[in-house]
């Protein structure tokens, strides 16, 4: 039974810090049974509610790409991370889980207007990086809370996407064998779970 438990613990280990609530729940570390009514169907397709205003969505999309940018492999936008984030916050998370994300986006928006005189979505990549750094270092209101939550969303969305699992990482559907002493030098990419 331990492997199930360890597999889930691995999600936690990936971040090595306090977990943003939806990710924590998925990893089984939170314990908050609720009594809400619901239908046992997993919502798929477009988000059932608009989580973001158009400017917020544009800013969130741009920032996701700065967290996991296109390099020699595709980045967050190509991997569909912005859509994953909006879908998760709309239908797969609690409404309260949107709060730190929206608050952080609004704080970054305000700072962009103040510092660069442009809406956040129109800032340059370098300016986005500077704004994300301010958030990371908690130098804007609710900055670090936003940064940690947002980074976990982007990382989770990216490394569970087809691009993340099969291009950035390598996915072996059927390894067929186990070698517990495999030379690291023969590994090209991190293996997806």
């Amino acid at each position, binding site marked *: 039974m331990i492997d199930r438990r360890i597999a889930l613990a691995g999600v936690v280990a990936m971040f090595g810090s306090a977990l943003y*609530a939806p990710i924590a729940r998925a990893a089984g570390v939170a314990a908050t049974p*609720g009594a809400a009514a619901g239908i*046992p169907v997993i919502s798929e397709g477009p988000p059932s509610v608009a989580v973001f205003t158009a400017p917020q969505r544009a800013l969130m999309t741009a920032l996701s790409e700065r967290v996991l940018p296109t390099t020699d492999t595709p980045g967050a936008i190509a991997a569909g991370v912005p859509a994953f984030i909006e879908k998760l916050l709309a239908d797969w*998370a609690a409404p309260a889980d949107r709060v730190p994300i929206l608050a952080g986006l609004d704080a970054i928006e305000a700072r962009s207007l103040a510092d660069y005189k442009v809406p956040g979505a129109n800032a340059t990549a370098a300016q986005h990086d500077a704004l994300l750094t301010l958030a990371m270092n908690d130098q804007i209101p609710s900055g670090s809370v936003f940064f940690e939550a947002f980074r976990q969303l982007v990382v989770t969305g990216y490394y569970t996407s087809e691009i993340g699992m099969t291009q*950035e990482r390598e996915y072996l559907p059927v390894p067929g064998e*186990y070698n517990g002493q495999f030379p690291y030098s023969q590994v090209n990419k991190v293996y997806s779970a």
Partner: protein
Amino acid sequence: MAETNRFDAIVIGSGVSGGFAAKELTEKGLRVLMLDRGKMVEHGEGYTYDGKPAYEVPARNIMPKPLVDSDYFIAKHGYVQPSNREFHNDDRLNPYAYDEGSKFYWIRPGAVGGKSLIWGRWCFRWSPEDFEANKRDGIDGDWPIRYDDVAPWYSYVEKYIGVSGSRENLVYLPDSEFQPPMPMNVAEKWLKQGLETKFPGRKLINTRLSNMTEDKPDQNRTKCQFRNQCGNGCSFGAYFSTQAVTLPAARATGRLTLKSDSVVTNLVYDAARKKVTGVRYIDAKTGQAETVQADLVFLCASAIASTQILLNSRAPGSDRSYFDESGTLGRYVMDHIFRVGIEGDIPGMEEFIEFGRRPGGVYVPRFRNIGGDEGVGFKRGYGYQGSAYRNPAAPVGFGASMKQGMRKYAPWRFSMGAFGECLPYADNKVSLHASKVDRFGVPLVRFDVRFRDNELKMMTDARAQGEAMLKGAGLTNVKSSESEHVPGDAIHEMGGARMGRDPRTSVLNEWSQAHAASNLYVTDGAQMASISCVNPSLTFMALTARAADHAVQSLRKA
């Protein structure tokens, strides 16, 4: 009634016990009806997400919070995911109750195959010590059987299902009939050497697992392919499940009728003849109730569900079950206590990683109180399950440098968790709720089960010893944790209808046969009079095969 005389035996439940009962009874020539409350899941085609990566599973295989809150608020403790959700119970539709201050996680399956589709697959024999423990400790509830009574049935079951593991010749943990073990990785081998050198007498061994390392072509089963996606269902049939192993065997006889979505509410009893004369069940799809008859009944619905069915089998207007002449029905409910974890970094060996995703890991067998009370402040003992692994490096900062940084693996880490034995307490009980009933009209199970001083002291020791062993073996940054101990959380719940020699203090006799009805056998976790500290499913299978043999011999004599 048309159903009369169609069946020689009825098996209630289709998990590790029920499936084995159906296999054994049909192979011995009986016409068997197997009832299960869950939905039908066929081997292979019913495993919707077998082989599917996260991006092909709804919600990236992360359980949506609203769905957890509404329908899976208990199942979440049983590792439910979108990819295996159909194998799990819906907690909203099937409620239960517990008393204030005695929280219990009753983690249930929701499909044919029962927990054999969602189990952890670790397989251990009990030791002679385990069967003698209650007697030795002067605890009420001596087992009416000993290791030698069960040993041949362990062999029988192990050879059939396929158990991988290493021969160790340990007093406390008898060897099974093994296929070759799942190998240890380089870091686990290093830890084994350090731990066993520093702590003479303690061992770190290969796991013993129902995941096979050799094919069983006669059963159309292929050895483990190291995907470690067992919980999605395994079309290779590499691990034991009812679907992969016992159901095909039972079907091959042509004597099995399987009805899914069939919720057994109670047993019909003839007090004059001291026989069960029928099984009443409700079709979950139509709500229609029916009573079906057979000469023999195997109750294998799981420890708590079987106890619930027994409790609910009573004369009209009576609170007392037909099977509770002793007053022990529903009592002595136990679960392993296990929310202690220890982990640390394993230095070096960074030139190696694991290739393939191995299920299982390594095991530190019990070393406390073997052969007598060692004066450590508690009775019995615990073992640890763990593994060494390298995670991908954690994200640092953001952007291209973070992405690049996550292209490597972090150093080796090792983590393990303790599984401790819980003593049998008469006051740890389940009963029927006085006023609340479920959608089938069955009174809810009401839990009043708590861990006591012995279990908590044992966990304190497990935490301290675990830290000492990992530090002693040379790990760094060793940390331990202990979280809320909730009975049921280990999903090893047992007891409720225990075996014993005396009908005045037990529900079942030494053949898992009801004292009150010679044609009723209860062969799942309900029968357990104590629970060892090792994973129980293998023992349920062995006791089931043993009981089936006894039942058929008894029928032939009659």
